[in-house]
């Protein structure tokens, strides 16, 4: 199968990015160095191509009720101009996808979903429309998306856009223009730093990229995107959450809302899990010996296997190996000494508090 290309593909190649397959797209994993790109986002600002992610528009009289039915978070906490992070779950509580939707009007919502789940989500949503008056349009390939993240993102971006960014609070958004280009801009992100996510029509790809690039912000690839989100302990679909792991197990119990009088998919299982706890739970991991832990490595307490690493990496900010793991509840206390098996050797580690780092 031919890999798909985002409208920024040519720019990435020209910048010397190392391109890798990711969710069916050819994406930049790094331009020069993951460490330098990571640092740039923590200290200044970085630009990420996130056009591989999906973008849907949901329009209709029943959009609100429909989303209350398919999402686990409570839309009564939402208002016009605000976005909400949520999970869409199966009846058994495991996760179809985690995503953010934005209320543009009470009958029009924009939704950003994971790259690897675009087709599955589109199908799942449409299968559950039933009697609801909702029409879903897949804008994923008509529009493109960039994230602009870092402590300097506000000041670097303000001169380019017409909206007063200081008025856009976290998780709020605006439709405005960037040097004349109509954009959707939200104060959201996946790095643990303040920052924005921007969406606009493909035809403006080069123009918007050039304006952002000329602010001095550093292009950052998927490698840095992963180390940044792991330090901030944001879940990655297929790792911390999946069709085998529920949000409660993944520590996202705060997403599971009672929504009295509203029946939503997964409600019964998830509320029970939230109340009674689960047999396994997501924890933070440090390695106490030299090495790097990676996804799916086994975690042991004494000689007993108690779980596995869901995400692991070297942390450029903390200068040590960090990870997240799903372990049995009885061994999930902070400071519990564990072992992690790396290529047939079991190295000492410890369960630690999370997040490792956040600056939002």
């Amino acid at each position, binding site marked *: 199968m031919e890999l798909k290309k985002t409208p920024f593909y040519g720019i990435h190649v020209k910048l010397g990015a190392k391109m890798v397959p990711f969710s069916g797209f050819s994406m930049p994993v790094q331009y020069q160095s993951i460490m330098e790109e990571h640092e740039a986002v923590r200290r200044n600002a970085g630009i990420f191509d996130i056009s591989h992610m999906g973008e849907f528009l949901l329009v209709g009289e029943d959009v609100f009720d429909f989303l209350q039915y398919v999402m686990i978070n409570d839309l009564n906490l939402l208002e016009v101009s605000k976005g909400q992070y949520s999970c869409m779950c199966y009846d058994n509580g495991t996760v179809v996808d985690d995503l953010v939707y934005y209320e543009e009007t009470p009958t029009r919502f924009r939704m950003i979903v994971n790259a690897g789940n675009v087709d599955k989500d589109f199908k799942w949503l449409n299968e559950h429309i039933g009697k609801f008056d909702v029409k879903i349009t897949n804008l994923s390939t008509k529009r493109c998306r960039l994230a602009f993240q870092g402590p300097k993102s506000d000041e670097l971006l303000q001169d380019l856009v017409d909206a007063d960014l200081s008025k856009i609070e976290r998780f709020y958004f605006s439709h405005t223009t960037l040097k004349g280009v109509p954009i959707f801009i939200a104060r959201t992100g996946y790095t643990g730093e303040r920052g924005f996510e921007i969406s606009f029509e493909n035809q403006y790809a080069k123009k918007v990229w050039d304006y952002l690039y000329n602010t001095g912000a550093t292009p950052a690839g998927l*490698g840095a995107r992963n180390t940044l989100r792991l330090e901030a302990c944001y879940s990655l679909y297929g790792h911390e959450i999946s069709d085998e792991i529920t949000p409660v197990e993944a520590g996202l119990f705060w997403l599971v809302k009672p929504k009295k009088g509203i029946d939503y998919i997964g409600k019964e299982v998830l509320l029970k899990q939230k109340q009674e706890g689960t047999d396994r739970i997501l924890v933070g991991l440090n390695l106490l010996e030299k090495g790097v832990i990676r996804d799916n490595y086994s975690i042991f307490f004494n000689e007993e296997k108690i779980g596995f690493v869901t995400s692991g990496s070297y942390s450029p900010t903390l200068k040590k190996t960090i990870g997240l793991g799903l372990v049995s509840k009885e061994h999930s206390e902070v400071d519990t000494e564990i072992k992690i098996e790396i290529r047939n050797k079991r190295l000492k580690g410890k369960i630690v508090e999370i997040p490792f780092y956040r600056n939002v």
Partner: protein
Amino acid sequence: MDYKFPKDLKYTKTHEWVLLKENIATIGITDYAQHQLGDIVYVEVPDIGMVFERESNAGEIESVKAVGEIIMPLSGEIIEVNTDLVNEPELVNSSPFENGWIIKIKISHPDEIKDLIPVEEYIKVVESEEQ
């Protein structure tokens, strides 16, 4: 991409370089290999005295994103390891052919040397992988 290919070294198709001096071989990974791995954060080297067959796995190189193996270019006994890499694994990135060398071995089967590839041939290996 412009990679360095020192002419006085021998190479393997798995991207190790070998510097031969009598019956001692110094071994590291090539500029191309370090570039493929990206920022290196940990190098796991074997203990001195360990004996390896050619093509066996003698260690691991962990970068932020990936893990690479050190495949023995020749059979032999480990006589020295680069202890600077414990605290400065990034030397493999910044100086793959000099300060970032990884192990020294005493060659046990000198007849294997003829199977190492010269620089011209190694450049072709890299070119074909680049495509």
